[in-house]
């Protein structure tokens, strides 16, 4: 190294930023170090999605992290101002490609609250089943990816098999694996196929042994433990301060779950627990995710046991399309069909603003919708859980080793599509 490039000794210059945490390895005295700025992402195998961290490294230690977003900016929120209420549902699929169903349901519920529509019980139960299945798919894969980022590549591949089975169910019901677009304002696109409940039961029966396998491989694995325990610790107060929600917040002892605290879609009828840990580290997030999968399985079983019969659309509300057979045979249904589909017509939401939040696999997904009384929203603002989790990487990982940044990143479950909107 040429003498010009050699930086001043670290000890001589007062640290402009926070000093290293407890895990910092002290440098040999007299060893001159130069800070190095590296880009972690947006294209990096250990980076989930097009996320970018600009890291200032001091050797193997991460001195300063600058999380950057916007690499997957798609203008979803702006698109909401140009699409009708139902047309925006296809956009919500693309926003979270790990749990599209949960996003479909969240947006439909928000618009229904704005319109004052009550969805029939069968539609509510099917929505709950789909939401919980997407939570299972998301958490299983999330746990697998955590394993992959820490060197257990097989965990990810095996998790993907189960995730694909969740997508098989989605495809059977909605016709799309990833872009489900299953909900409509006032109900669902169509009812479940007849063989679907039996197939969901077959899937959840097969899942328990897989969960035990996953637990057996990771939960007491020494390498996994040493890479995760005490890493990325966040206290309960910090989780509140940084606006965290979902499994990451619950792993820090913040006992908050909208399914229990502010029930929607009939969640109050189901018996389930909200797993909470107090450690707040990467390992606690892994345990919370695994425990949540088990609770989701319980909810799905209960919902299947008491799946009500009846319509899946709020027929009286004049916001849902009638069945095609009725459109061809009844004049009123034909008129309603045209009133909803003709350009310039469709669902007219009253003037007003609403915030409605649901508990998606990643946390609180909120929709702030402003309606000016026309057929399209005036503004659709999303409160994505990923945004708050992504920014919290800074306090979690600064001062730690680069390898810990990877572990923390994968434990947060950030979805780039939702983050950048």
């Amino acid at each position, binding site marked *: 190294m040429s003498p010009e490039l050699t930086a001043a000794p670290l000890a001589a210059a007062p640290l402009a930023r926070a000093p290293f945490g407890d895990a910092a390895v002290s440098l040999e005295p007299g060893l001159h170090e130069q800070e190095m700025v590296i880009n972690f992402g947006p294209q990096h195998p250990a980076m989930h999605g097009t996320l970018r961290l600009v890291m200032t490294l001091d050797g193997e230690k991460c001195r300063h992290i600058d999380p950057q977003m916007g690499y997957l900016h798609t203008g979803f929120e702006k698109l909401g101002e140009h699409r009708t209420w139902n*047309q925006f549902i296809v956009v919500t699929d693309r926003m979270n490609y790990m749990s599209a169903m949960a996003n479909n349901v969240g947006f439909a519920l928000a618009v229904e609250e704005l319109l004052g529509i009550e969805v029939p019980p069968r539609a509510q139960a099917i929505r709950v089943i789909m939401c919980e299945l997407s939570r299972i798919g998301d958490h299983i894969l999330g746990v697998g990816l955590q394993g992959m980022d820490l060197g257990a590549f*097989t965990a990810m591949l095996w998790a993907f098999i189960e995730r694909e089975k969740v997508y098989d169910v989605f495809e059977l019901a909605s016709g799309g694996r990833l872009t489900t677009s299953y909900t409509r304002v006032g109900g669902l696109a169509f009812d479940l196929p007849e063989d679907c409940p039996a197939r969901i039961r*077959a899937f959840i029966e097969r899942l328990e042994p897989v969960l035990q396998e996953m637990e*057996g491989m990771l*939960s007491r694995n*020494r390498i996994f433990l040493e890479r995760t*325990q005490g890493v990325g610790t966040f206290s309960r107060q910090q989780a509140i301060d940084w606006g965290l929600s979902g499994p990451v917040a619950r792993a820090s002892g913040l006992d908050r779950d909208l399914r229990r605290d502010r029930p929607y879609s009939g969640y109050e009828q189901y018996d389930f627990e909200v797993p909470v840990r*107090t450690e707040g580290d990467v390992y606690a997030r892994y345990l919370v995710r695994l425990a949540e999968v088990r609770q989701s399985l319980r909810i799905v079983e209960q919902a299947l046991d008491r799946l009500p019969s009846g319509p899946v659309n709020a027929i009286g509300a004049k916001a*849902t399309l009638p069945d095609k057979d009725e459109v061809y045979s009844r004049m009123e249904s034909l008129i309603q069909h045209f009133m909803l589909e003709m350009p310039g017509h469709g669902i007219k939401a009253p003037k007003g603003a609403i915030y409605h939040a649901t508990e998606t696999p990643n946390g609180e997904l909120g929709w702030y919708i402003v309606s000016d009384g026309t057929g399209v929203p005036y503004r659709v603002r999303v409160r994505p859980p990923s945004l708050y989790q992504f920014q919290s990487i800074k306090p979690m990982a600064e001062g730690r080793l680069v390898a810990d940044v990877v572990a923390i990143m994968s434990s947060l479950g950030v979805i780039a599509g939702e983050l950048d909107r």
Partner: protein
Amino acid sequence: MGNVHDHAHDHGHDHGHGAEEEEGAPGTTLADRTYIPAVMRGIKLTLARFLQPKATVQYPEESVYDRGSDDRAIGTQNPRLRGEHILVKDEQGREKCVACLLCMAACPALCIYIEPEAAPADWGPDRERRPKVFELDMLRCIYCGYCEEACPCDAIRLTPKLYQPTTSRLERVYDKQRLLENNQDAQVPQRPRK
């Protein structure tokens, strides 16, 4: 919010936690620290998985529905799968589409373009309009099925047929003729009920 820690104790006893109280905290027992049982468990699991049938599906030659194996098979191609569109013909061989433009309005991706024209005189009094131009840009299409849902006369349908690769972008813009010809080899599935 003061009783959060009580809650944590109520709910925190999941499966892993229970095991931990019996055998000591993860990572502290001798078995965990030597790592040998973990390695043996891993090898055992790998061997068990090795004997199971492969999860990989040779898409597109094979679909998960062709497999006939356990929980992933229903025997046929999923009739709800949203694949390529077709324009349906009626019993007399005329296209059912009456160019009402509802699908054009319902499409969130704005990929349908229709120009209506008067139907030929020999089509009889029951048909007044038909599409002169019906273009569907498959590259813009997001396969959401809203056009099918909006159609008041069952004229545009999505089939479980998935698209074939093409060598030019222009080939992916389907005109009326192409959409009608698609009818030949794709089965029109039963429409799912609301």
